């Protein structure tokens, strides 16, 4: 299990990294935390000809909350840095819930937010969270930049809208509105394993404590993170009760088409999606009420 040969280039700046990518295109991969890419290379499932190490690139890491409307996370921000950022976790409780489920401390010390999202593993927690939080993905290339909604960024299993010459440089979440509660839950075989099913819920209540918006996204049950916010529409304008939540959970079960894997049958995944929907919506709702 040794990687096939490649050229390694430590990029000295963002511009350097982007120009290298422009030059080598699909032949080249960015090396961020390496926690998905290097295992794949050791198994020789990935054989990039050129590896552009972006770990030395400045200004790609960190949380920026200077703009009140949004929370920006640099692509090279490591899981561990977010775990240690109490203010951030308070503002984005989905991360607080989800980060401990992502692998183990040693991997969280290296793995990056941008690497995770670019890798686009449908069982990963973060794409679902990005979708639930209506994140914006900021993308750069040597020739320009663009941005797009998370829900459009993920296009298939391990595949995104990123073009051969592009880099994901930042993701930005709208700062949660007041009276917003959120919860991420998952079922995995062991702590740190990819989720068999995970669900991210973001819920905002109005003055009368009725739901004004509900965002629901799942991981592990489709080719990408699955946005099922639509099934929560009946909740809008309603208050959360056992019955309304059960109805949404039934909707979640119907809205997904999991394929099953070696650890879980498709039926089990569907069932768990419903169970987690009830639990996570209830918990998110509890949290808003406590906060309010």
């Amino acid at each position, binding site marked *: *299990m*040794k*990687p*096939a*040969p490649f050229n390694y280039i430590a990029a000295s700046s963002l511009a350097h990294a982007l120009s290298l990518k422009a030059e080598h295109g699909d032949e080249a991969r960015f090396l961020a935390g390496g926690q998905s890419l290097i295992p794949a290379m050791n*198994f*020789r499932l990935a054989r990039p000809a050129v590896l552009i190490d972006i770990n030395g690139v400045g200004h790609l890491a960190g949380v920026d909350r200077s703009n009140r409307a949004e929370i920006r996370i640099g692509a090279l921000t490591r899981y561990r840095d977010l775990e240690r950022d109490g203010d951030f976790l308070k503002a984005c409780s989905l991360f607080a819930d989800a980060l401990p489920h992502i692998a183990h401390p040693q991997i969280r010390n290296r793995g990056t937010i941008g690497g995770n999202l670019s890798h686009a593993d449908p069982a990963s927690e973060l794409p679902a969270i990005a979708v639930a939080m209506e994140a914006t993905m900021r993308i750069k290339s040597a020739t320009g930049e663009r941005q797009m909604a998370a829900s459009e960024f993920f296009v298939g299993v391990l595949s995104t809208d990123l073009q051969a010459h592009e880099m994901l440089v930042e993701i930005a979440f709208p700062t949660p509105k007041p009276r917003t509660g959120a919860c991420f839950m998952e*079922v995995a*075989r*062991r*702590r*740190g*394993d*990819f989720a*068999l099913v995970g669900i991210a819920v973001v819920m905002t209540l109005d003055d009368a404590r009725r739901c004004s918006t509900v965002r629901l996204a799942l991981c592990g049950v489709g080719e990408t993170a699955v946005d099922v916010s639509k099934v929560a529409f009946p909740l809008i304008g309603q208050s959360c009760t056992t019955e309304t939540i059960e109805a949404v959970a039934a909707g979640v079960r119907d809205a997904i088409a999991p394929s099953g894997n*070696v*650890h*879980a*049958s498709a*039926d*089990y995944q569907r*069932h*768990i999606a419903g*169970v987690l929907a009830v639990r996570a919506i209830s918990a998110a709702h509890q949290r808003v009420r406590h906060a309010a």
Partner: protein
Amino acid sequence: MTTRFFGAPIKRNEDKKLLTGQALFIDDVELPGMLHVAFLRSQVAHARIQHIDVSRALKRPGVVAVFTADDLGAYWKPGPLLVPPPPISGIVFNQRTQVPLAKDKVRHVGEPLAIVVAESRYIAEDALDDIEVDLEILRAVVDLEHGLGTSSVHVHDDLGSNISAHVRQIKGDYRCAVAKADLVLKRRFHYEHGISSPIETRGVVAQWNARGSQMTVWDTTQAPVFIRNGLAAMLGLSERQVRVIAPFVGGGFGPKIMMFYPEEVALPWISMRLNRPLKWIEDRLEHFFATTHERGQIHDAEIAVDSQGRILGIKDVFLHDTGAYNPYGLTVPINSQCTLLGPYVVPAYDSTFTAVFTNLPIVTPYRGAGRQHGVFVIERLLDLAAGELNIDPAEIRRRNLIPPDAFPYSNEIIYQDFQPLEYDSGNYEPVLDKALETVGYNHFIKHEQPKLRAQGRCVGMGVACYVEGTGIGPYEGAKVQVQANGKVSVATGIGTQGQGHFTSFAQIAADQLGVDVTEVDVVTGDTDQFYWGAGTFASRGAVVAGNAVNEAARVVRQKALKLASDAFECSEDDLVIADGKVSIVGIPQKFIRLGELAQRANPMRGAVKPGTEPGLEATQYFGPPSGATANGVHAVILEIDPLTFELKILKYVVVHDCGTVINPMILAGQIHGGVAQGIGNAFYEKLSFDDQGQLLNASLADYLLPTALEVPRMELAHITTPSPLNPLGIKGAGEAGAIPVGPLFAQAIENALNVGRKKVELLEIPLSPSRLFELTRMADQP
């Protein structure tokens, strides 16, 4: 002899090296000029080989040589049969052992096709891609029942079927038992064991020294002496020309005793051909195919009981997956067959098995070695009978235990060591009582469980019994030697993989020779240090080699006393041996150090008297007449999330009787580790093959070894019934932790789930949340 150390929780001599990164493991062997080896392995389970073209690989810079089966010439031979079939009448055994490189056909994914030798492992792996293999793909035999069907393809064409073996063993008259029975229950059980997956994979380093005509092989084997003998024969060398060293080995658990693995055969031969040292380290991906598994059996089993739940008879017909070859003979299925009888009086037993060749990796013993499968069947049958008869699960076990006055207890059938299955000693009921008491059985059932159930929590209790045949022959030996510096050296032929032999053997020798444990250096697994032996398997190291150490140390002690009595001109009875010296009773200032006695025993002048030997040393062998039988009971309280079926263990208890205990700290560690593997087997680890024989989860991300969060704290207790079969009274303990966890989980999970719903019967292992969901849903369907 004083027993200062024997029986005490002595800290381990070997730890310091291991804790500081100084212990030598196989991949730490670095030799000048060493080349690196990679194996091209079949990607498909069953195919005819049309053509292999290695020419491109040979052209790659850094590649030194490439070999296919044809290149091995006369050296190419199927491996030896490790354990011939036992003397059971009517036995059918079709020997088909593994080959060094596949020749006409590949028979499982991962079977080696070609060998690349290169300047680095990186380059060797690059060159694997250069080899072109032309295969005619055949249907794969994966399912045991299909494999025996008339339309199945055959793993070994010349055999005309996929039957590897067929064995029937009978005790008493099962038909009579049925006639007398108040209840007869029949079920089908599936039990799958997984892979041992030690954290260190396998590896081989071979170095041919042309000048000295000497072959040195470092090997992660559990049986270095057998490897030495086999290699000498294969290579046309005498045993003295071959030295096999099993260095520190990072866990074995059974599969590292298999032999000969293709890599063990190939590397020494290539090293001779190229006259260069070679290294091959199995990577984790290879480990999933290239190291043996244990896997599955399907049992159709029947129990006949009276109205009180007493067993009248058991009938069992089972299929055993032996994989593509059967080099380990029948050890695994015979263990299943024998261990099914458990600690119970079973007057009539009729057991038949068919071992089936499949296009899957080879099956050989992995910790438990088939015992799990048998224990699962008997324990589940008892649970089912208890349910039908409305008897408490602990009580039905108690009623069937072999009484203490019945030992030695003969089960009449033949065991894996070819001896009739006879339990040497035991006292089973106190073990059960202790387990029930420690887990709080009655309190839980009467008070806690009803309370928790009222809160909607699914909590369950399980209790399972087992016996473990241990410490089988043939023999081991040990050489104990007092060095001139007063240190004691102990050498044995077994390999060691973490069982603490460096300490437990030192404890035995230290007590005999009156030195501190830290003054005893134990050498294991180097055939130049100790010439004879069998290996570490079947929980035998401590029993068999331990007794040999004791015998040898006893002889050295006698020699020391004799020499000292000559020196002091006093009777041996007036001497004490303690603190590294021999002194006269009551006159501690009159002493001779052991080291000095060792020097005197090797005089520079004067003749050694006829009949005596120089040196303060002795070599002794020990071979038990038959295996000692340990026993135990595990009990668990666990909770299942009623919606997600996730599992949480609330309490875990092991009560165990493995005779006299050398080192309770090491014993506890063995049990903890066994339980952890048992939990993996019961609920996490499953080899998922598709119908083409492809393993779908060949990585540690998907083959789920339990972590610190899945393994609970365990409470241990011991009962001691010494074995009469060896002077130290010890029984083995290596496998005890792992054996009964499957039925224990099944019982406790059923107990947790079967409230207010139709009964779910858990007749298979491994289980998982997803599987529990499916099974309860099936049970809930009208």
